[in-house]
């Protein structure tokens, strides 16, 4: 992650408390209210037990211990002491059990909510249309379901619940202090704001300093990665010293950022302990005074002291909790932004079924206009048709609008004007399932998912059985390719199909399309160069794929183009020429000139 990204991410929201966001989060809490209630119960019991502990100390000291100092026979006092200690040990054992549950339960609660939210978010993202995806780097989306969700989990495990409970504790403790001794309590009440002040003053600085360290660290590692991937260039150009200097600069910045954090923390801990000493000093001053006046017992002071200790931690952690809350709300806002995004491609309320006939479908583009961004029209009045069983090949420069045709036919996007029909049904009126299940889809990158080869061919389509897979592999010329893998169809495919070469991935993508026995094919031919043997295989497989099916092909292979029933030459969003290979040659237009150029070169060689 680059420094820029961090800054941008953390700029989204700076609110510490956002009620509407919190209310929305509560929706996800509701299914797990039992866990939440249990967590609160455990926290309350634990707090009560802690208070009881201090109470036992007070009574043990003021009871048997003090009384014994003026008595002859210590035996009854010892018995009383044993009773107190016995009760104390029992209490401690109970607390140990509670402590386990405190941590485990809070964690479990947070994870339960977060798991729901993460799954929900993922499902939502998957249903958004391509306009959403095309505008965002994949990495940013991944961050939403990973880091942002993790931030939120902290909101539950150590943020809001604990913060809420800590505040309760502070108030309850201060109240309890009054119960023990009013003057002592007043002194405490007057000095405690100092503690809070230190904690909060530190908060902002620490946050900024940490962000800086993270950014510098990311940049440092980024540079290291970059140099490693370009190590050959560095070495051949003998620029070791230059990159070393650059690295040194980055390191120096990293070090400076670290120094600032170290300074802050070095300052924070003593400052905090100084503030605690002030609180304690005040209590001591008043306490001793009252003890000499006999208006306060030793046991009471002892208890008071212990309660004072209980007060420090929640206050000291206040700053940290505050930061957690802030970053969690920023994450929540980014997450809800996505959840609020509605797909632009909307499913019709009462979808029209696309009739299934024994014939491949008839596709029509009727006066289609389209723009991705308002004002920049990508397609102008494009009309053509794909009669049943025929292949239309589209050729043209990058940006001529070829892939847009595919996007519109599959309804990844909706037309801005005109319409696209399948057997007379406007694609906008059909259900997405009905529409997309008709296609055999082969996209450029030959995308494979992590899983087995079989998973990738079947794609959990109920109609694809073992026979269909075998048949498809045969037709795609890919049977031996699969057999070569250890495990055959059950061989594992690495992430993004990295175990296969580019050409092999293309063959498998063709097989995947064939396995569905589609009668309509969309093929975006890959431009990446592959070796000649694979090239020949792909050529044959493509022919198999296109025969007898209606097909829209973004063509890059001469053989595919030659075989097409109709060639569309796209130029700046318009159809510049159309016709069969022979017709276009005879016409002597752009296509013919290009073909001639090609032919001449080959002949001249």
């Amino acid at each position, binding site marked *: 992650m680059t420094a820029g990204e961090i800054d941008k991410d953390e700029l989204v929201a700076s609110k510490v408390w956002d009620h509407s966001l919190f209310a929305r989060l509560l929706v996800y809490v509701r299914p797990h209210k039992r866990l939440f209630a249990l967590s609160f119960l455990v926290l309350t019991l634990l707090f009560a037990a802690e208070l009881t502990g201090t109470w036992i100390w007070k009574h043990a000291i003021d009871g048997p*211990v003090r009384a014994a100092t003026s008595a002859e026979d210590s035996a009854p006092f010892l018995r009383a002491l044993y009773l107190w*200690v016995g009760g104390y040990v029992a209490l401690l054992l109970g607390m140990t059990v509670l402590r*386990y549950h405190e941590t485990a339960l809070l964690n479990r609660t947070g994870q339960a909510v977060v798991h729901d939210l993460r799954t929900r978010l993922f499902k939502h993202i998957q249903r958004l249309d391509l306009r959403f995806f095309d505008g965002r780097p994949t990495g940013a989306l991944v961050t939403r379901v990973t880091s942002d969700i993790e931030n939120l989990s902290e909101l539950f495990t150590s943020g809001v619940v604990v913060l809420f409970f800590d505040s309760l504790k502070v108030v309850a403790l201060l109240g309890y202090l009054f119960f023990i001794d009013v003057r002592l309590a007043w002194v405490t009440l007057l000095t405690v704001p100092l503690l809070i002040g230190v904690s909060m003053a530190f908060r902002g600085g620490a946050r900024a300093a940490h962000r800086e360290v993270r950014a510098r660290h990311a940049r440092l590692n980024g540079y290291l990665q970059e140099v490693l991937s370009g190590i050959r260039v560095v070495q051949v150009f003998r620029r070791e010293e230059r990159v070393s200097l650059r690295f040194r600069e980055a390191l120096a910045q990293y070090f400076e950022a670290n120094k600032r954090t170290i300074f802050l923390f070095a300052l924070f801990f003593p400052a905090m302990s100084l503030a605690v000493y002030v609180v304690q000093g005040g209590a001591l001053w008043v306490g001793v005074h009252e003890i000499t006046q006999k208006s306060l017992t030793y046991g009471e002071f002892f208890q008071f002291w212990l309660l004072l200790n*209980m007060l420090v931690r929640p206050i000291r952690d206040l700053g940290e909790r505050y930061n957690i809350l802030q970053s969690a709300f920023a994450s929540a806002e980014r997450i809800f932004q996505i959840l609020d995004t509605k797909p632009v491609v909307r499913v019709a309320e009462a979808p029209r079924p696309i009739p299934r006939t024994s014939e491949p479908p008839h596709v029509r583009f009727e006066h289609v206009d389209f723009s991705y961004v308002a004002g920049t029209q990508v397609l102008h009045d494009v009309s053509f048709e794909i009669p049943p069983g025929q292949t239309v090949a589209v050729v043209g420069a990058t940006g001529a609008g070829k892939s847009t045709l595919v996007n519109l036919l599959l309804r990844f996007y909706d037309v801005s004007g005109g319409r696209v029909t399948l057997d007379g049904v406007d694609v906008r009126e059909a259900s997405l399932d009905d529409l997309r299940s008709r296609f055999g889809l082969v996209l450029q990158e030959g995308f494979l998912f992590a899983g087995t080869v079989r998973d990738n061919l079947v794609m959990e389509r109920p109609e694809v059985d073992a026979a269909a897979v075998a048949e498809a592999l045969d037709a795609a010329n890919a049977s031996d390719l699969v057999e070569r893998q250890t495990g055959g169809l059950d061989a594992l495919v690495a992430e993004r199909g990295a175990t296969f070469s580019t050409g092999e991935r293309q063959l498998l993508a063709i097989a995947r399309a064939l396995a569905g026995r589609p009668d309509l094919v969309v093929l975006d031919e890959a431009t990446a*160069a592959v070796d000649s043997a694979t090239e020949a295989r792909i050529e044959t497989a493509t022919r198999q794929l296109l025969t007898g099916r209606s097909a829209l092909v973004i063509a890059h292979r001469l053989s595919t183009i030659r075989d097409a029933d109709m060639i569309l030459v796209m130029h700046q969003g318009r159809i510049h020429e159309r016709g069969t290979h022979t017709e276009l040659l005879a016409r002597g237009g752009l296509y013919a000139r290009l073909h001639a150029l090609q032919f001449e070169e080959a002949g001249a060689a």
Partner: protein
Amino acid sequence: MTAGNTGINLSLGRDLAQSVLQSALVRPHGRGRGHPLTRRGSPRTGRWDPAPHHPTSAPALALLWHFFKRFLRHRTALLLGLVCIPLGILADVGVTLLIGDALDHARTADRSDWMVGVILWLALYALVQSVFRFYQRWLIVVVSRRVEVQLKQDLFDKLIALPFAFHDRSRSGDVVSRMTSDVEAVRMVLGPGLMYTLGAVIIIPISLVILFQLEPTLALVMTLPMFCMGLTMKLLSGRLERHSMAVQESAADISHRAQENFAGVRVVQGYRREDQQAALFERTSGVNRDNQNQLGNARGITHAAINGSFDMTFAVILLIGGIAAIDRTMPVGSLFKFVDLTIKVFWPLIAIGWVLGMLPRAAASAKRIDELLREENPIEDPPNARTLPHVAGRVTFRDVSFTYPRGNAPALSGVTFDVPAGTTLGIVGPTGSGKSTALNLVGRLLEVTSGSVELDGVPIRELTLSTVRGALGYVPQDSFLFSERYEDNIRFGASHDLSDAEVDALIERATMTEEVARFPEGKRTVVGERGVTLSGGQRQRTCIARALAREPEVLILDDCLSAVDTETERQLLRSLSSAGVGRTVLVAAHRLSTVKDADQIVVLSARGSVEALGTHDELLARGGWYADTWERQQRRETLVEEVSAVASEPLGPSGAAALSGTQGQGGAR
């Protein structure tokens, strides 16, 4: 009892304890909001290097000592910082004794004016303690960061000096994790770890001695639960780390699955596989949740065990101290001292457990760092390396064979050819035939297994690296550029500072002038993620400009024209050949049209041997792989590219003129 949670004093190690309970070790996603300790070195998105738990062998600990010597380079600051530790602790303990005595005194006194003195002393102790604690942390942690930075610089310098073969076999992720988590593990144990250990080693005996004088039995008995606590910390840290690792692995799975799905969304939606993929994702997320829960349980056990044993200390104090007070062998005020000192000893004790738990990993990390620093560099100047006063540029391969360290078959075998100075050699062959390997041998990025590569008739092994590499201009296959300003990428190539005019001339030669002018800040625009994204073709042309910036005698082009269209390729090749008569060019290519005008073309076989050598016409006439491939490529020659080249021109007579012009000059070199 309450003190376990309350942490009355912010004494030494209090912050550490928090990090012990909350650090990345325990809370995997802790990004260290709280403390420098929790701010682990691992990158935000990175995974922990799964450091195996090596047994702490003596040599490993010796290695840690070896790294500690780096700390001693800053011994003044370090010693000052270490001296602050006992002074701060003494002041801290002093506070407890002061308050305890005041309380004892209060029980018998009937006036309280003596309290002024107590409060003044308290203020003094508090100030002294704060000042020392500030300097202790400031000095020691800054030193540890200094050491970190120097260690990283040394590692970096070592890395960039190591031969290509090293980088080829090690994944860059491993190297980066050595640079981050390994260095951090060592830093933590030797810097802050030492600070906490020393603090604990000082405060524990001091407290025990003081308490022993008050009530020996109690002082002895109460150490029992304390040791339990230290032990618990050490015992459980392994378990915590195991669970934490599992959590990180499953978190990485989530990330991968999301990455895959979002990147392949066209396929997912095109095949209507949203539900299926969502179910898979839910399963992955569920595994993570389960792992998180297990980790939470382990943390719960640790939390409960530590606090439980701590609390038991208080029960012991209440029992034995109470008995002693009842028997009047100890004043009641001493109970306070016991309790308060116990609280102060609590975190340092945990610190020891924590440092002990860290040691094996730190030792393993130290070992890995040491290995890297000791990695031998076989490609170095021989003792009596020669230089050439003037390089003409003749390149000769004499029966060259090369086998990759882990390869079972040679990548090149018995390759011989001679490229006279100023001529061009094309290298072609099927994928995996060793084209790139041959080029890497020229720059001595790899070392020949047998035979020799010669520059001007001298084996390059006998020349200094500077002589060999100084004569080369290299254009890599992956067209690597730095995420720096565009012009800096070109200046990178030159051995002297280039003037703006020279940079412009190079951009012109790479046919990039118009495109660069369109960048937001022209040639000062940053390239890459943070700036302008270049197309494959633009990157390749920029790499060529960079190589030309050196005025090299030998230019090496590693299949670097695959992403430019044929027309730009022709222009570039023209520009390259006009760039300097007398420059030797070695060009590997997948597309045969790239090399067809070379003075000679060597065809490598799939096994890495020379299949044929000759000019384009000779090779065509001879038939075989070259002629077949040529024919196939011509047939396949992407029509679309030609369409792009022409269709982007305005249509009409001028376009046609451009077309015929191209044709006329086509292939001129």
